């Protein structure tokens, strides 16, 4: 399975090197679980320009409710072999704010770590493993933990 993940992620990067194409508009979601919470983030990457690759992210977090996501990603320079992702999960969290996240994943296996926070709340920083879910089909999925919007 790690080999498949590797192929998928490097295909993603390869596409960006080739340049934007109509096929990208039909790109599948790449999904990650924000462990130990039950949220699953389904992110779609739009390559912008040529190498070094940069991506715009559009996604959804819909295990518990339908929340839109937008952000960006680029390969690590200080930490080669990683993809750096930053995004906003427009979930309305307690206190009337959204969730923002900074993520590092390894291109070798698709897994990584995340730090998410509710802006302005000092108790908002949470972190943990960012677990790649192969074969994401876009359905909400089965919750495997609490909603990170409300459980802290």
């Amino acid at each position, binding site marked *: 399975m790690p080999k498949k993940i590797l192929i998928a992620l490097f295909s993603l990067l390869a596409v960006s090197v080739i340049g934007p194409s109509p096929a990208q508009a039909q790109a599948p979601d790449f999904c990650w679980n924000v462990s130990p919470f039950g949220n699953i983030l389904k992110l779609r990457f739009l390559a912008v*320009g040529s190498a070094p690759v940069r991506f715009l992210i559009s996604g959804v977090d819909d295990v518990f409710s339908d929340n839109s996501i937008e952000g960006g990603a680029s390969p690590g320079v*200080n930490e080669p072999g990683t993809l750096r992702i930053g995004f906003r999960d427009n979930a309305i969290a307690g206190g009337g704010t959204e969730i923002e996240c900074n993520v590092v994943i390894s291109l070798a296996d698709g897994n990584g770590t995340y730090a998410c926070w509710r802006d302005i709340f000092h108790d908002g920083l949470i972190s943990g493993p960012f677990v790649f879910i192969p074969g994401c089909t876009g359905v909400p999925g089965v919750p495997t933990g609490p909603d990170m919007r409300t459980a802290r």
Partner: protein
Amino acid sequence: MLKRTLVMVCALLAASALVSSAGADTCWQLSPRGNMVKLRFLPVGPAPFRFLITGVEDVFTDRAVNGSASFGFHEPNTLRLGFTDYAIDPANTSHLECNASVVLATGNGTWTCWIDVMGTSASGDFVLVPGCVGVPGIVTGPDLATVR
């Protein structure tokens, strides 16, 4: 009328040089800090032009950046940028947000960045770095994420 048209054409040409959709990063230093944002622009729709921004800020660590840009209305011949720099500030559990204005004639401008709602903002010169090649670059000042 002719002068206005010429100004508009020049502005668009300057803008297209700055925000090439073909893909290279356009880089600016947040002077006097050492941070350098490398931004890439995706045009969206017809005129008046709007851009989505995706980028990186990797002089100190690898941080993703995203935002948007559009031409100045109240200040013609400027490009107005707004973006989020996903630098983690554990002390405040927040990130950096920035507002920049660039003069199309030179590519230089000014920036203001802040930790959202914390009231700790900073500002300075937004200095175009020609020929940015995507490497981290040489550190010329402190990290905006930690020094304000």
